[in-house]
């Protein structure tokens, strides 16, 4: 039921008693969760349950009110933690892609490596081309985001994160804005990233993806983690009424 933090605190991502409010709304309630290196955790739950907020806290897009959040050994909110530096270790894939519309696919991928990681341009471009080839877009290197389909844009966005060689990848509903026929091309790329041993937290309702690569499924409701277990446990034998109700709703179609 509960996902306790590892005893010695070696988790890549460690939430300990984290709370967050938006005004009077308690959007994260006493979250305690540990994600081990190379682990893939799928977060699901009804809309407004705090899933997105949960993973946005990890790279500091949202700040937490109380509790501890330790990422890659560094405590968030600690003056000693260099947030900008830490973010280079964390890739974040948005629901709405957020590619830079004035840059080509390759420039989207190489921008941060060149200016943040200070990798020489030729080296970064070489790596960028390889990454775009890896996500199946070798022929779209010079295309602008507006010339790409949603699925292609999201694959560029994943390549953009991988270009930073992160230790952690966070996905915030990466396929929710896509047409059905484009979902699988993005999921395939995510499976490949997971199989290479990336530490991942994925907010998604794609249960096929969860079954295939997740070690753990975390179910959230009203800001709290209600249930957590292996995909098999969670899908075949949900423990709480709320998770059963949720599953019956999403599995119906």
């Amino acid at each position, binding site marked *: 039921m509960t996902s306790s933090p590892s005893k010695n605190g070696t988790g890549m991502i460690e939430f300990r008693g984290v709370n967050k409010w938006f005004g009077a709304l308690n959007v994260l309630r006493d979250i305690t969760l540990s994600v081990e290196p190379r682990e893939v955790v799928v977060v699901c739950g009804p809309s407004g349950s705090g899933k997105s907020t949960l993973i946005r806290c990890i790279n500091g*897009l949202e700040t937490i009110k109380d509790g501890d959040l330790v990422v890659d050994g560094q405590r968030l909110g600690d003056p000693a933690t260099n947030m900008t*530096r830490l973010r280079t270790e964390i890739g974040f894939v*948005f629901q709405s892609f957020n590619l830079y*519309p*004035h840059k080509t696919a390759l420039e989207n991928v190489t*921008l941060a490596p060149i*200016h*943040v990681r200070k990798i020489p341009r030729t080296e970064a471009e070489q790596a960028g081309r390889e990454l775009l080839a890896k996500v199946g877009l070798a022929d779209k290197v010079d295309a602008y985001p507006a010339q790409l389909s949603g699925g292609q*844009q999201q694959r560029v966005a994943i390549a953009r994160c991988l270009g930073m060689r992160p230790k952690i990848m966070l996905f915030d509903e990466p396929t929710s804005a896509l047409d059905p026929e484009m979902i699988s091309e993005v999921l395939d790329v995510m499976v490949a990233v997971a199989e290479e041993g990336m530490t991942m937290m994925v907010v998604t309702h794609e249960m096929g993806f969860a079954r295939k690569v997740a070690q753990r499924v975390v179910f959230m409701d009203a800001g709290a983690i209600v249930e957590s277990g292996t995909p098999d446990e969670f899908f075949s034998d949900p423990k709480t009424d709320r998770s059963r109700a949720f599953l019956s709703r999403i599995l119906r179609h």
Partner: protein
Amino acid sequence: MAVPATHCCSLLPYSLFTIRQSPSLFITARPMLENFSFRTIVEYLPLFGQGLVTTVWLSALSFAGALAVGIVLAAMNLQRGRLFRVPAKAYIDAVRATPLLAQLYFLYFGLPRLGFVLPELVVGILALSLNSGAYVAEIIRAGILSIPRGQVEAGVASGMTYVQRMRFVILPQAFKVTIPPLLGQAIVLVKDSALLSLISVSELTRAGQLLASDRFMPAEGFITIAAFYLLLYYGLKGLAALSGRWFGLQPARSST
């Protein structure tokens, strides 16, 4: 029944007819057009030419100044802290609420009292820069705020600093959005520069005033300067079209 209707309909043409026949209008309009002296205009062309050149470069300098003032004000206005935001807002409000003429005289008569005796031309450029800068600040601020929040977040998430985000992500996109309103502001500035004739800067309007008062030919003077301002307007529009091509201006497209 039919009689009042026809009577009613005939009212309008009838009144037009009487106006056309009105002796006073006929007399005042006629000499102005008949005596319109192209010869005098040609005679004054060198003066108009000098005025035009002065208007062009003083407007260019003032717009450069306005951009500098505007960028600083916009940056101040976008800060979270009130320390910078409040003075910037107060300045912008003060400039937008008062007439440019009042601001111009304020500087023209006020600066010498503070011990700054500057040439009229410098006072004029200063006034135009400070005035237009307030409007430019709002244009730039709106341009930056028009960039979707997701763009900022993408930059943040990839570890960019504030300056890097501005430089590589926000400003290049905001720049394209702001070109058309900035062009509009530049056109306003060129026309506003006509007010500098009131502190005897020899720019385009001043040339028209001289013709009007020396030869008692207001029509020649002011129609000529109007034609030159029209020319400047089309020049600026052409420049904007060119710059649009240089910067690959296209309708702002967003991935969000």
